[in-house]
Structures are given as C-alpha cells and as structure tokens.
C-alpha cells in the first residue's frame, strides 16, 4: 500500500487526507420497500419487479439469488438509477434515510459511487475501450473528491494493490487485460471512493470456476477488511452461503423467500428455494450416496401475462388449485419469510423435494 517514491510531499499529504476522509465513511444502511418496476412495451406493461422489500443492515452482506430473468439485476440498476428512461419505478429505497429512487441524474451525481458503487455484471464490456484503466478509475475519484490527478492516480495505485494488480498496469487499456484482471480492475474501481454500499451484480458470472473462486475470496477479504454493506447478486447459492448474512430469493420479479442465510438454506420454506438448492452441486458426504443434481423443469413465466396465482405454481411439484388461482401472501416464520400458501408443510416438502422423481413427475404436465 506504500511506496510512492514519485509522490511529492504535498501530494503525499493530500493522499493521506483523502484516504482518511474516505476511510471515515460509515457503512450504509439500505431499506427497500415495495419496489416495483414496470417497463412499458408495445404489448402492454412488463412487470419486471413486483413489490420487492428487503433491508441491508450497515456492514452486512445480502445475497440476491434467483435464476436468469427474475429481476435481480433490474433491482440493482434501479438502485443506481440506471434503468432506461421509459421505466416506471415505484416504492422506496432509503439509503441512510434518504429515498434514492426517482432522483434525477443531477441529484444522483452525489449518490452514485460516492455512497453506492457498482461491480458490474460483464466486466468484459464495462470498461471504456479507448481510455486506460487508470484514467477510468481517476475519473470516478476526481468527480467526487477535490484532489488533483496525481493524488487520484496514487489512490488508484493503492486500489490496484488491494485487488492484486501491479500499479504499472494502470496505464494499460482494457483490451490488454484478461477477463479476470478486468473484473479485478472493476472491483478496484468500485472501491476507489470507499462507498458505504457496494452493489455486486454477478461479479463472477463471466469467469471460469477457478477465477470465480479467486474473485469471490478477494471480495470477501476486502469486505472483512473494509466493513462495507453489500448486495451480492448471483445465481450461485453456494456463493451466498459463504458470503452473505441474509438472503433474498427472487422468482419472476417477486420475493419468494428471504431471511438469514443459514436458516433459509437449512430449512427452506419455499419450494423454489428447495429446487434451487437441488440444482447446485454439493460436496459428497462420506458413506452417503452422492446427491444427484436435479433441475427445476420449465421456465420463468412470461411477465407480460403473469399467471393468476403463485408465479411458481406452473413449475411447483406441490402446487394445488389454490396456488394456481390466488397469489400467496408472505408468511413470517421466525426470522424467515416466504410467499407460499403451504409454509406449514415445508418440512414435508423438503423431504419430497430431495427426491428427483418429485420434480421429474412435473415434466409431462408442462
């Protein structure tokens, strides 16, 4: 973290002050309630996210899981104000008490990166190809802090060191970086202003498994070190188990289940969570047969014509006529909550859901 031989005494002081100022930022608290997002399309409104609520306590991680197309990234983009202009966003997102939904670009200028920063989904394309990485990191620092380019660059060097990239590569361009290096550069950029809230939108999706695990342990290490709040969007339940205190499982734009990660993964209440768990490989336990991977048959329903009842009913092996006609309310059990009519039968479901045949029997009826 040290070793700026080229930095003059004045710049070194300025850097020290900048670092102190940034380190003093507290972790942010985020309270999202009733968040709904509609796109208007030629065939009517598209309900991408419907009445989503969750809370991220200061200094904790929240995992947002679900399969592709269920609205996870849309939630993140809404929090950053990055959705297209024609999108209708309702509800509230209180960042340390201030609602950040519906702010104009000008008002968001102070919020973005200063208070919430973003680790993007596709680091491959999320860096500007014609600027060197260092300039792109400095751009973020200079936009928010009253420092000169030299100091900003020195800060960028420190961030590069933090993610394990050599400082001289700041002068290189995105196309000279490998996928893993680009992802690390994007993480360095996200950390540059030590924002109180970090949104990590599938930070490892585009990487190979070895790189995925390296990047995730890097993120966890940094998190332990800096104590920021974070929303981690992923479809990998194992990553959530390792990283997040709380988890929100989304399905087709709605929250299916949420609660402390341990509880949700040990005793899932919603059949969709059970299905998700089945679909991820687990370490084999000695003396027991290896658990088969079971996929959930079918696909996410078309949200232009959302089904009348529970949105998961069409793919749920336990669905009844009630499920298909009435949308379930959210039931609270302990610290956990789930939107399922039959939460009280969850323990029965868990046993049945572990059997591949339960899910296989669904397939013809699709």
């Amino acid at each position: 973290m040290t070793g700026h031989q080229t930095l003059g005494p004045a710049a070194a002081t300025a850097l020290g002050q900048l670092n102190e100022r940034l380190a003093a930022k507290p972790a942010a608290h985020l309270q999202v309630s009733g968040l709904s997002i509609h796109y208007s399309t030629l065939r009517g409104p598209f309900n991408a996210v419907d009445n989503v609520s969750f809370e991220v306590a200061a200094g904790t991680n929240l995992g947002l899981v679900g399969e592709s197309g269920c609205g996870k990234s849309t939630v993140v983009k809404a929090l950053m104000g990055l959705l297209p202009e024609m999108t209708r966003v309702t509800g509230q997102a209180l960042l340390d008490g201030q609602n950040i939904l519906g702010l104009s670009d000008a008002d968001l200028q102070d919020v973005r990166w200063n208070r919430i920063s973003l680790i993007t989904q596709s680091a491959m394309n999320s860096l500007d190809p014609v600027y060197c990485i260092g300039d792109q990191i400095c751009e973020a620092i200079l936009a928010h802090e009253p420092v000169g380019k030299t100091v900003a660059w020195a800060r960028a060097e420190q961030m590069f060191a933090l993610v394990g990239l050599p400082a001289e590569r700041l002068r290189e361009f995105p196309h000279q970086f490998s996928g893993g290096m680009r992802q690390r550069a994007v993480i360095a950029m996200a950390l540059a202003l030590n924002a109180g809230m970090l949104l990590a939108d599938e930070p490892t999706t585009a990487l190979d498994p070895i790189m995925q695990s390296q990047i995730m342990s890097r993120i966890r290490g940094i998190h332990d070190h800096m104590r920021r709040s974070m929303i981690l969007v992923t479809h990998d339940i194992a990553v959530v188990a390792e990283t997040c205190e709380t988890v929100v499982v989304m399905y087709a734009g709605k929250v299916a289940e949420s609660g402390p990660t341990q509880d949700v993964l040990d005793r899932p209440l919603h059949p969709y969570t059970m299905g998700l768990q089945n679909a991820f490989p687990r370490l084999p336990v000695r003396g027991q047969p290896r658990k088969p991977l079971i996929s959930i048959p079918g696909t996410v329903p078309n949200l232009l014509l959302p089904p009348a009842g529970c949105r998961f009913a069409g793919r749920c092996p336990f669905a009844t006529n009630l499920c298909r006609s009435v949308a379930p309310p959210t039931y609270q059990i302990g610290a956990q909550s789930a939107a399922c009519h039959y939460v009280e039968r969850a323990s029965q479901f868990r046993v049945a859901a572990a059997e591949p045949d339960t899910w296989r029997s669904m397939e013809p009826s699709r």
Partner: protein
Amino acid sequence: MRAYILRRLAQSVLVVWAVTTIMFFMFRVMPADPTAILLERGLSDEARLALMEEWGLTGSLWDQYVAYLGNIAQGDFGNSFFYRKPVWDVLFPLIVNTLWIAIPGLLMGAALGAAIGTAVGWAPRGGKLERSGIFLATVIRGVPNFVIGIALLTVFSSTLGWFPGFGMGDPGATTGFARYFTLDFLHHLALPLIAVTIYFLPENLLLMRSGVVENRTEDYIELVRAKGVPQRRVAWHAARNSMLPLITWLFPALAETIAGIVVIEIVFSWPGVGRELVLAVTRQDYPLAQAAFFLLAVMIVLANLAADLAYGKLDPRVVYK
C-alpha cells in the same frame, strides 16, 4: 511501425502509378484534337505537326507513355498546352486557393457536425431534437451544393450586401502571397467557406449521431453513468468512441474535397484547382489535367495513410503489423 509505413508507402506508389497510367490512356483515346484550341482553322498541317512534336504527341502511344513516365519520375509534368507554361506554375497558386476554403471548411464542418451529431445522438430517441437534427441533415445532404451556394449568395450578397459575391479580392487589392493576410481576402473567403462547411456538415452529423446512438447503450456507458460524473462527461465517452469512424472518413474526404468542391468554386468564382481541372479537361490540356489528377491521387493515398496512423493514436486496440 516503420515497416508498416514503408510498406504502405510502397503500395501508395503502386496506386499512384496505376492512376497515372489510366489517366494517360484515357485522355489519349478521347477522340479530340488538342491542337484545335490553339490553332486557327486552316493552318497548315506542318504547323500542326510541329506543335504535336513540341507537345510530345507524335510517335506510338507506347513511346509517349514511356517518355511521360520518365519525365514525371524526374518531376517534370510538362507545359500546359493552353497557358504555355509549366503546369506547376499554373497549378500551385490554384491549389493554395482551394486549400484556403477546403481545409478550414472541412474542419469546421467536421467539428460542428460532430458536436451537433453528439447532441442529436444523445437526445432522447424520437424526441424533437433528434427528429429535427436528422431532418435538417438529410435535407442539406439532399440539396445539390450549388443550391446552397446560390442561396448564400442571394441572401448575404445580393439582398443583404454583407459579403462580396465573387472572386478572391476586389480589383486593385493586394496581390501575390500578401493578399492572404488582408481583410479584403477574408471578406471574400467567408461565403465560400460557409458553403463548404455546410456541405460537409450533414455527413459528419449523421456519422457521429449513429455512432453515439450505438455507443450509448453499451455497458461501459452504464458504468460511467454509475460513477456519478456529470451527464456531459457521460456523453463525451460515447462521442469519443464514435469519433473513430469519423476520422477514417475525414482524411480521405479532405483529398476528395479538392475535386468535390468544384461546384462551390464555380458558384463563387473562386479561382481554385477544381474549377481549373474542369476547364483543362474541356480544353484537352493533357499535361495540366494529368498533373492535377496525379496530385489528387497522391493526396488521397497519403490522406488514407494519415487516417490509418491517426486511428492508431485514437484507438489503443489498433496495432500496426
């Protein structure tokens, strides 16, 4: 890098040679007699032959061609049939005159076009600014450029009387090189310069707009927005990435201008090289026309090379091999 430039220069020589050859034979297969314009009808055949001899138009076509190539290899493009002096003496001042309207006109057209194009491309899709910007660009592009010239003349010269209507200077004004630094010259320069600027504006505007429209939805723009920089800065990222095709187009356009603004030169009676080129062809003034085309070929080839080199500066992904 050096190997690349050398190879490109070698290719350029080849291209220029090919153009020169085609030009040479094209003029000679035209069924016309270049001596007709200078000789009075009824002059003796001997006099005509003597003139042909002097101009190097006797002997087989092949011999003429070899002699011509040999001469231009030594930098000798011959004498103009019409003006009866070396072609460079005729061409050089005209080229300078043309460059006076071509280069600033092109640069202003590119700069203005790029700026407006960025604004139009960044504006909400289907909004007023976008629609009127595209409409304006398409209209200007569709209008023949002599119409633009005549319109400018009608409004600012005939009606308002703000600017002179033709030529490069009032009678009795300073001549020679010093004239380029007189107010009188700038006064005459204004209208043709505006005409050239307007002529180049729409192409740049549309090119830039489509680039910005394409780039504004890229992932990196989303990240720039997320960084909380002013919107102008976000638009700049899109513009900066859209400049690359503009540069590729700009340099060759500069060379093509020399020929392309003929009409503007004629409308404003601007004594430029384009106007002279047309006259030279109609007068069968082979040496002058060939030299002018040779020059254009060299300029276009060099401009393309310059564009490729500038591209490498603007786009770090470009590598010269």
